[in-house]
């Protein structure tokens, strides 16, 4: 699905990380941890083609990301559902249109009518369908972002601190949704600081925990 081979990333002359090797195989579940500023969000952005590596090679679905034009990157993003830390919605559109946006930009808006009710029910937002993003709570926005990320039935789901702004109960609910997706065969990569969330996940699904520290990516140790 997504492979990082000896990847390095520098910004303004400073190296954020290097020699990063990562392979996200189909149906796997990964956590990415590490201290703030270690480059977790940057690493995720490399995984969905928003940034270009300054060293090594990133392969998105077998294609070298450095050789892909912007259209090709856009097409690959349709196979990757992204849940952002700050959600990123279009505030002037109601929730249904925000969630259906990936279908809309792909010219598949006709599918929205059949998919949306089930999807809204799955994330528990059926009653908020007509509301606008600023009217939603933090947890509702995170669940809406997850619904938007999966509406295209992507192969990979990448979530950046999806539980950062929600309480424990809501974190559990979001985790359950992500585990359900993984059980459906989706590859999941979650960046998080929340060790309790990782422990909760490990009790339900086989996960691989990666730690980004001191400019290197490594398998997390026993402290978990």
């Amino acid at each position, binding site marked *: 699905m997504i492979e990082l081979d000896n990847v390095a990333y520098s910004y303004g002359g400073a190296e954020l990380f290097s020699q990063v090797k990562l392979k996200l195989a189909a149906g796997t579940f990964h956590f990415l941890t590490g201290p703030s500023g270690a480059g977790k969000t940057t690493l995720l952005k490399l995984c969905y083609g*928003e940034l270009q590596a300054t060293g090594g090679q990133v392969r998105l679905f077998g294609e070298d990301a450095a050789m892909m034009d*912007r*259209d090709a990157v*856009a*097409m690959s*993003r*349709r196979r990757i559902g*992204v849940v*952002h830390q700050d959600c*990123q*919605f*279009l505030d*002037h*559109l109601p929730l249904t*249109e925000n969630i259906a*946006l*990936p279908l*809309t*930009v*792909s010219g598949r*808006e006709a599918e929205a009518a059949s998919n949306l009710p089930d999807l809204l029910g799955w994330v528990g937002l059926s009653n908020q369908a007509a509301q606008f993003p600023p009217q939603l709570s933090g947890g509702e926005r995170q669940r809406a972002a997850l619904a*938007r990320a999966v509406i*295209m039935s992507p192969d990979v789901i990448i979530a950046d601190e999806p539980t950062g702004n929600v309480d424990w109960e809501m974190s559990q609910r979001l985790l359950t949704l992500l585990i359900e997706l993984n059980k459906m065969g989706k590859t999941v990569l979650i960046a998080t600081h929340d060790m309790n969330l990782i422990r909760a996940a490990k009790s339900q699904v086989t996960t691989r925990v990666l730690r980004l520290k001191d400019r290197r990516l490594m398998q997390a140790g026993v402290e978990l």
Partner: protein
Amino acid sequence: MKFDFRRLIDLIAGDPQADRAVPPTGFTARLTLFTAGAMAFLAVFAMALSLATGRLADRWSAELARTSTLRISAPADQADAQVRAALAVLNTTPGVAAARALTPDEQRALLEPWFGPDLPVEDLPIPQLIEIIEDGSGYDPAGLRARLQAEVPAAVLDDHTRWREPLIAAAMRLRSLGWVAILLIGASTGAMITLAAQAALAANAQVIRVMRLVGARDIYIARAFVRRFTLRALVGAAIGTVAGMFAVWLLPSADVAGGFLTGLGFQGAHWLWPFVIPPLAAAVAFFATRAAALRTLREQS
């Protein structure tokens, strides 16, 4: 380049979903509408000037080329005889359709702007003028001058070349200036719409980020902006054009304004020409916005 009619229809029909993704932007919308309207208004005047000066040049060229003047400055006792001789020469000259001596009243009318009314033309040693009207083929001025020199030595032929050519050249230059003005107006419209489009793109950076995040291609994002600006330019230019045509229609007529403004405005089928301005403004907006959008999206990636 083959014109793709289907693409034009697609553009006009648009993609309502793509349009909805970009929030309405009041400031840039008003700026584009106003710019397109004002520029179209000015373009109508530039076009009217161009067409009017073109007509003027053609008319001067045609009218003056078909007439000449023969001036006979002879002593009073020989004047009638020389006029008769000159008319005889003219009436037998190939290419001359008609020739006639101006009456004292006509000569008085010609001098009236300088000397006032009631000038005693008969008592003054004023040359006698003969108006010559050419037929379609025209006469040979050099040959006529040679014959007149032999038979009417006091006659001086003025075929208007001396002052006709600078007048026509001036009219042609005015016409060119009109078209240059239209080109400048088009370029200014493009520049203003580019700025407005860039402002709209900058104001919608978050929208662009979100659309990219969910897999929108650059052309899809650009299309939402392009269609919006194209339609605004079309509507603004249509309003400006109609207002400009109305203003041109209100210009004083030749009878009221006198000779100088004769024919300034549109005549006959020329009234159809301003209707090309709105589609042209829309085309300018289309290409300006498309270029600006794709460039900005490239820079933002």
